[in-house]
Structures are given as structure tokens and as C-alpha cells.
């Protein structure tokens, strides 16, 4: 039987959808255990247990997390050894990829990032060149480490909550390491996270600092708000909202691009969305080349009208 280890980074109060997806994918592959570098809350643990996980690993010394990446990677490598895992699954955040990267060197294990599909025989599917290629690849070492993009697999129904057994592992943190000396939480919006959202309304320079019409539309659709780099660079919205080559790569069911011209670096982050809608007042904007539905018009009249119409229809 294949042994699968799922690394869950930065546990929240309860399991996030992307974490439920990881645990669901893992359980299609074999026997699942979990690794958590931080101390989780009980509700989170019960959630992990509800996916059939009976054991989870934690470092004896929780300060591994105070050392940037190196500490968690050392812990993950120990947990892989302790669980005799053949397959290791992680999320796809920058930090998760880095933890995977270093654990890979420690374990002499191949790492594949940005996985959107995984067969039972561990053939992984991913997109390359900003979504212009579909690539299938495999790890050729005994242990396979994969970082999986959110929204790639369906999260299975959870079973009954149950608390998995904790196994503490001694971890030797590399001495040559960078220390995290400060942490400032960012404001939380109450909207879904970009990586997980089914609907994203994204704004660019055309928004001219006023995201309110986009937020209203996003809320009417239960969606998240994203941005182009021009909008985040201008300081109109948090940098973590940036979509594109150096921001997030998203593939929601619906991406509404508003006041964004559609430069290659922006497209790199959104062109695998299922349906793309674009609102731009310039008919020659490249974004219209990839839009399923384009509106040449002023966002400040089109968006409020659409939001009002959705509300009117009682949707």
C-alpha cells in the first residue's frame, strides 16, 4: 500500500478548502498521514481526522518555524522518513514549494510543482509557459514530492470528525539559517482567497484607485477581488491581490477583468480561467483577444449596473 504524507502549512482555525482537496487527493492514492510544523487547533485536527488520517507528525520543538523554510524542510524530511512515505503532497504557495525543494534535496526525491492532476500511477499534469502547454511528468526517484494547485481536484465529503494521534519528532534545524524576527498580519477581507475563489473580479490601472465598484460586484457574485500589477504598484490594493507572472496564477470558473489591458505577464496568471469577461473602454485592448465576453465601455457605469441587475434578479 502506498504511504502518503500531506504537509499542511500555517494551519488556520479549520481546514481550508485547498487543504480538504489535498487530503482527498491523498486518500485516493493510499494510506494518509499528515505533517504539521505548527501547533494546530482542535477543530483543525478534527478536520484532518475526518479524512481518515490517524496519525500526524509534529516537531518536538515548534521553533523550527522561526527559521525561514530550512526548519520546516528539515522537519518534513524527518516526517517522510518516520512515516516511510512514498508520496508527499503539499500546497502550492511559494513557501510550500520551497519547503518541498529543500526536503527534496535532503531525501534525494524529485519535486514537481504546480500540479493540476495526478493519476493513480503518479503521472502528474501541469501547465507550462503561462498555460500555453499541458505537460505530463513523473518523479523518477523512490519518493515523489508534489505541490498541488488549489481547485485542481474535488474535495471529497469528510467523514466524522476524529482526532488523529500526535507523533513528535526531534528535528535538527540547520545552523546556517535565516531567522524570522517579525511578523505582521495583513488585514483579512472576509472574501474568499484568490487561489480558491470560483469567481474573481480583477481591476487594473483603469480603476483609478477606486475598487468599490469591483468589490460590490465581487460580493454580489460571492467572489474575490484581484488586481494587475499596475494597480498593486500604485498602492490601491494589497500586493497579495496581484494576479500574473509574479503574482498569483488563478483558474476560477469566472474571471472578470476590469480596466486591465491584458499584458502577457497579466495573462500568464489568468488565461486558464474557464470563462473570461473583460470590461475595458479601449476596443483595441489585447485582453479582448482572450475574452469570452467583452464589453467596450466605462467600468464605472457597466459594473454598478451589473451589480444592481444581479441584486434585482434576487440572485
Amino acid at each position, binding site marked *: 500500500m502506498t504511504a502518503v504524507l500531506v504537509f499542511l502549512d*500555517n494551519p488556520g482555525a479549520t481546514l481550508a478548502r485547498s487543504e480538504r482537496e489535498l487530503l482527498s487527493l491523498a486518500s485516493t492514492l493510499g494510506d494518509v498521514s499528515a505533517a504539521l510544523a505548527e501547533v494546530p487547533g482542535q477543530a483543525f485536527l478534527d478536520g484532518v481526522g475526518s479524512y481518515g488520517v490517524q496519525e500526524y507528525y509534529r516537531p518536538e520543538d515548534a521553533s523550527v518555524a522561526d527559521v*525561514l*523554510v*530550512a526548519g520546516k524542510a528539515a522537519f518534513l524530511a524527518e516526517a517522510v522518513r518516520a512515516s516511510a512515505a512514498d508520496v508527499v503532497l503539499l500546497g502550492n504557495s*511559494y513557501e510550500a*514549494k*520551497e519547503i518541498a*525543494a*529543500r526536503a*527534496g*534535496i535532503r531525501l534525494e*526525491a*524529485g*519535486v514537481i*510543482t*504546480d500540479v493540476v492532476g495526478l493519476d493513480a500511477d503518479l503521472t502528474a499534469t501541469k*501547465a*507550462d509557459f503561462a*498555460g*500555453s*502547454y499541458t*505537460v*505530463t*511528468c513523473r518523479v*523518477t526517484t523512490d519518493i515523489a514530492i508534489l505541490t498541488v494547485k488549489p481547485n485542481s481536484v474535488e474535495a471529497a465529503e469528510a467523514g466524522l470528525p476524529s482526532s488523529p494521534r500526535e507523533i513528535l519528532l526531534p528535528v535538527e534545524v*540547520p545552523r*546556517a*539559517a*535565516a*531567522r524570522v*524576527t*517579525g*511578523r*505582521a498580519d*495583513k488585514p483579512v477581507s472576509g472574501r474568499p*482567497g484568490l487561489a480558491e475563489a470560483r469567481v474573481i473580479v480583477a481591476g487594473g490601472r483603469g480603476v483609478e484607485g477606486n475598487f468599490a465598484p469591483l468589490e460590490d460586484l465581487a460580493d454580489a*457574485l460571492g467572489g474575490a477581488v484581484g488586481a494587475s500589477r499596475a494597480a498593486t504598484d500604485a498602492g490601491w490594493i494589497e500586493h497579495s491581490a496581484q494576479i500574473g507572472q*509574479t503574482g498569483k496564477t488563478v483558474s476560477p470558473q*469566472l474571471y472578470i477583468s476590469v480596466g486591465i489591458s491584458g499584458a*502577457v*505577464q497579466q495573462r*500568464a496568471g489568468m*488565461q486558464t480561467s474557464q*470563462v473570461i469577461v473583460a*470590461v475595458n473602454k479601449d*476596443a483595441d485592448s489585447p485582453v479582448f*483577444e482572450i*475574452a*469570452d*465576453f*467583452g*464589453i*467596450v*465601455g466605462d467600468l464605472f457605469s457597466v*459594473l454598478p*449596473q*451589473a*451589480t444592481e*441587475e*444581479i441584486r434585482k434578479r434576487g440572485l
Partner: protein
Amino acid sequence: MDEVPAGLRVAVLVKHVPDAQFDRHIDAEDLTTVRNESILSELDEYALEAALQLVEAQGGSAAGHRVTALTMGPSAAVGAVKKSLQIGADDGVHLTDAALGGSDAAATSKALAALLEHTGPFDVVLTGMASTDGETSLVPAQLAERLSLPQVTFAASLELAREDTGWTLTARRDNDTFAETVVAPLPALVSVTDQINEPRYPNFKGIMAAKKKQIRILSLADVGLDADEVGPAGSWTRVEAAAPRPPRTQGIVITDEGDAGIRLVDFLAGQKLL
């Protein structure tokens, strides 16, 4: 002979990548990236700029500090080093060998680690946040692991201070839900994001000066590696197939005549997206 300067030695890893402004391709036969129309990776320009700013803040080359641009890749990849020299790096190194083609991140980091050990020691090794072709962001973390260097990655700001105990780097790193401050002693491995600076362009003076700068060309044997430690033989992953996706096609485009918001909602309803 290289003279060993007393100042800081900064390495910048620069990659030669296909220009994303054009269509990019994967060779249907050997499943590797087609490298025509390649340029210095845009994201590595931020690393080079960060390197130049770090040493300039400490007195620059006049104070004995030195920035070396290193690349690994086929013969044309030397273009990335040449461009770096024009922008302001002091010297360059090109690791090139037929056996390196088809290396995954593990094999690439192995080769680059050997290259850095052979040409170092360096006080700071700077990289981009991702290569714009492979886009894995694995190589910097793997280099830190292989070289046992403190890892300061995805830095959105960088400061170097001299203390009694030696040099200390302080960086800001943005996560989704929090921002962190990270501190490391030198030597360290640093990757930077595109938030950190505005990369400068080469100017005429820089282009002329670059002609006199030295580029060392090294082979695998020069850095002490065997052919089977890199390339497909030394890789831990394998590409099995690559297929171009059909490009997105343009859908309907309407011009607002006062009712576009309503027509948008009609479209969403028709697609069952409400």
C-alpha cells in the same frame, strides 16, 4: 590569476530564457524548451539590480566589492552574462556542457552549486524569484540546502549592515496573510521579487565598458562534475509528454450602449455562472 578582492563578493545567477513576448515552444521530439529568441530572464534583472545596489551602498567597486554574473546553459546563454556586464556586473562566468541539457531543478541546482563552489567563495548569492521558463522557484531553495547557506528568499526589500560580528542582511518577505522580517548573517543565498527595485538599463558607457570585462567559460569537468550527475541522468523528474493548448479564441465583444451591465448579467446567466 584572479586577484581576490578584500571587499564583498556578490554572485548573481542569471538565466537565458525564451522571450515571453513571443510564442514559446517545447520541442516535440526531446521535450525540452526551444531556446530561440532568448533573453536575460526579466526576473533576474531584479537580482542583478539588487546586487549592484548592495555593493554601491557600501562604496562600490572602488571599495573592493565585486559583482559576478553566472549562468548555466547552451552557448547562446552567454548572452545573459553579456547583458549583465553591460548593466554593471564586474565579471561573468558561463557554465556550458552538452550534458547539461534537460536538467531538472535538482540537477540544475547541483550544477550551479558546483559552479558557485568552484568560482567562489561569495558573500551573497542572488537569484531571481523564478525563471520565466521553468517557473518552479525550486532552484534558490535547493541551492541554499546544497550549499548550507541561510536562505533569504522572495525578498521584497534588502538591507546590508556591518556589525561587530560581521555582515547582516535584513529582508522583508510578503506572504498571503502576513509580512515577515527575516535576518541572516553572510554568506547567504537571496532571491528577490519584482517588488524590490526598478532595474536599470544598460547605457552607452556600460555597453562600451562591458567589452573589456572578463567572461570565464567553464565545462562540467572544470567544476568537478561528471556527465551523469546532471542532465536527464542526474534529474529526479522526467517530462513524459508536452502538448500545446489550443489558444483561447476571442468570444463576443459588445460596445456599451447603456445596457452593457444588464447584458453582462444575461451572459452570466446563460453560462450558469450566477
